[in-house]
């Protein structure tokens, strides 16, 4: 697997540690710029959806707004509640942030732009990203605040529930890759490598073979990132601000940096696994520039859809959210993996996998739509039966109390 060797970049030969340093600086810069840009874009896009104009004052088209916000956050006082558990409270932002930072390692931005090409890249991503939760729970518990604790418990429950379907549908893709790799008696070695998965999609992206997989992966990503409609852990109207209510200034911005970086990373992983990453329409020979453009284009498109879902979808209830993962997504993803395995084992063509997955996706959409219809109709009927009657509450009203 070719790997970019910075030490031979521009004809210089650098020692390893400078090479590593350059990569780290590059990642940190990317992270910061990404967070600032995403916050600005999110505000602008949301404003368009709501027929507003969004930030306009700072800089051209308000583009410096998030930079100004960042400056404000950096200079803010760092407050710690007196009853907070000191070490847990102060270390929590780093525990939430460092795992996200580590996930940068196996991401294939282009064929050769990878920090380190890991053989177990996919498993690594999920293993390390899951540790993010530790920071969240530490923040919730350390703040000594009921709302923070509730938010943290919600975040943990949600992340654990939605990680399972995400992993399972990705196993579906890995099965296809492994089947292709072993076709000529080869070994399935590398089927978990993100770059190999991207390499296999020169002609067809896996979204065509696994539409259900892509849908479930994106739903899971929304839930992992606490984005609407799955933003119960940080829902202002329910738990005030979630696990970071008590944080301010730079520690608070650490949580946000982690969140927006995780957004970018999960979307890039999703587009690598399902949309062909740097590979899809043009293949491997188009050169670095076009591959970077492809990655950026696919990532931006998916991020736009995520922002869009924030603008148009109402928030779920926490029990609906858990039920949706365990009763709907998990069975569907298990069926998907089973179907893939059976079809591949009996030598069925890949188009059969595509059709099965599409049928499953349609079934899923039908189920959700039908359920929503019954729920909304039922709600309307019960409202008609018992119209809300305004009632004068007096001091002696036994039902009203005082």
């Amino acid at each position: 697997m070719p790997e970019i060797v910075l030490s031979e970049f521009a004809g210089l030969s650098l020692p390893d540690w400078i090479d590593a340093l350059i990569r780290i600086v590059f990642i940190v810069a990317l992270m910061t710029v990404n967070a600032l840009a995403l916050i600005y874009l999110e505000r602008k896009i949301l404003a368009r959806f709501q027929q507003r104009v969004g930030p306009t004052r700072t800089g051209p088209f308000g583009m410096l707004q998030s930079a100004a916000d960042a400056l404000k956050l950096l200079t803010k006082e760092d407050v710690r509640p007196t009853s907070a558990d000191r070490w847990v409270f102060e270390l929590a932002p780093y525990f939430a942030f460092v795992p996200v930072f580590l996930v940068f390692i196996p991401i294939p931005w282009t064929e050769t732009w990878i920090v380190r090409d890991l053989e177990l890249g996919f498993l690594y991503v999920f293993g390390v990203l899951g540790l993010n939760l530790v920071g969240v729970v530490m923040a919730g518990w350390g703040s000594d605040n009921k709302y923070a604790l509730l938010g943290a418990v919600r975040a943990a429950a949600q992340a654990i529930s939605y990680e399972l379907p995400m992993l399972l549908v990705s196993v579906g893709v890995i099965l296809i890759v492994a089947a292709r790799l072993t076709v000529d008696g080869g070994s399935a070695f590398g089927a978990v490598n993100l770059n190999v998965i991207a390499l296999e999609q020169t002609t067809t992206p896996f979204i065509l073979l696994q539409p259900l997989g892509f849908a479930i992966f994106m739903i899971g990503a929304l839930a992992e990132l606490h984005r609407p409609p799955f933003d119960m852990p940080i829902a202002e109207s329910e738990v005030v601000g979630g696990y970071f209510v008590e944080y301010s200034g730079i520690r608070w911005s650490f949580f946000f940096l982690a969140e927006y970086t995780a957004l970018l990373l999960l979307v890039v992983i999703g587009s690598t696994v399902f949309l062909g990453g740097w590979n899809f329409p043009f293949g491997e020979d188009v050169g670095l520039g076009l591959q970077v453009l492809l990655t950026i284009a696919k990532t931006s498109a998916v991020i736009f859809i995520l922002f869009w879902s924030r603008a148009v979808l109402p928030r779920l209830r926490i029990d609906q959210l858990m039920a949706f993962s365990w009763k709907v997504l998990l069975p569907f993803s298990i069926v998907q993996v089973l179907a893939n395995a059976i079809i591949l084992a009996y030598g069925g063509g890949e188009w059969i996998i595509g059709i099965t997955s599409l049928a499953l996706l349609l079934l899923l959409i039908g189920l959700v739509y039908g359920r929503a219809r019954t729920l909304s109709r039922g709600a309307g009927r019960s409202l008609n039966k018992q119209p809300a009657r305004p009632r004068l509450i007096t001091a002696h009203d036994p039902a009203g109390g005082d």
Partner: protein
Amino acid sequence: MSATEIVFYCIAFFMIASGLGVVLARNIVHSALALILALGAVAGVYVILTVEFLALTQLVVYGAAVIMLVLFALMLTRARERPQALFGKNRPIAFVIAAGLLTAFIAGIVASEWATTNPDDIEPLPFQEIGDVLFSAWAVPFEVISVVLVIAMAGAILLSQPDQGEQ
């Protein structure tokens, strides 16, 4: 000493320090957090021993799932609102037993002749070999393990269900 060895001893020191944190912390949530660090360090030891696959399994299973379960249990049993003595009365005896056990272990380790290869000749174990063995020679135990998991899950659900009439 090679770089790998230096990293190994650092990880080992860190692992033992956080292990001590688990058993000595005054606050039960602190000891749960120390457990995370200790288990992470164990994953690091696996990486040094060239079993990356096992290290990642460790992170996925322990890092997220087990720790979350432990923290949930602590919150359900209200660890914070009820400060109380965390240690029993038999600390000296326990210390003697643990120290005696450790001495016996170390004596056994030092006294034994280990039929090993030279550590510098060890080649990394490719993870697909683990998979091959797991699904051929160990296929039946693997299935049995999955049955164990299902039974455990059913049992946990049954145990944590509220009684009849209980809110």
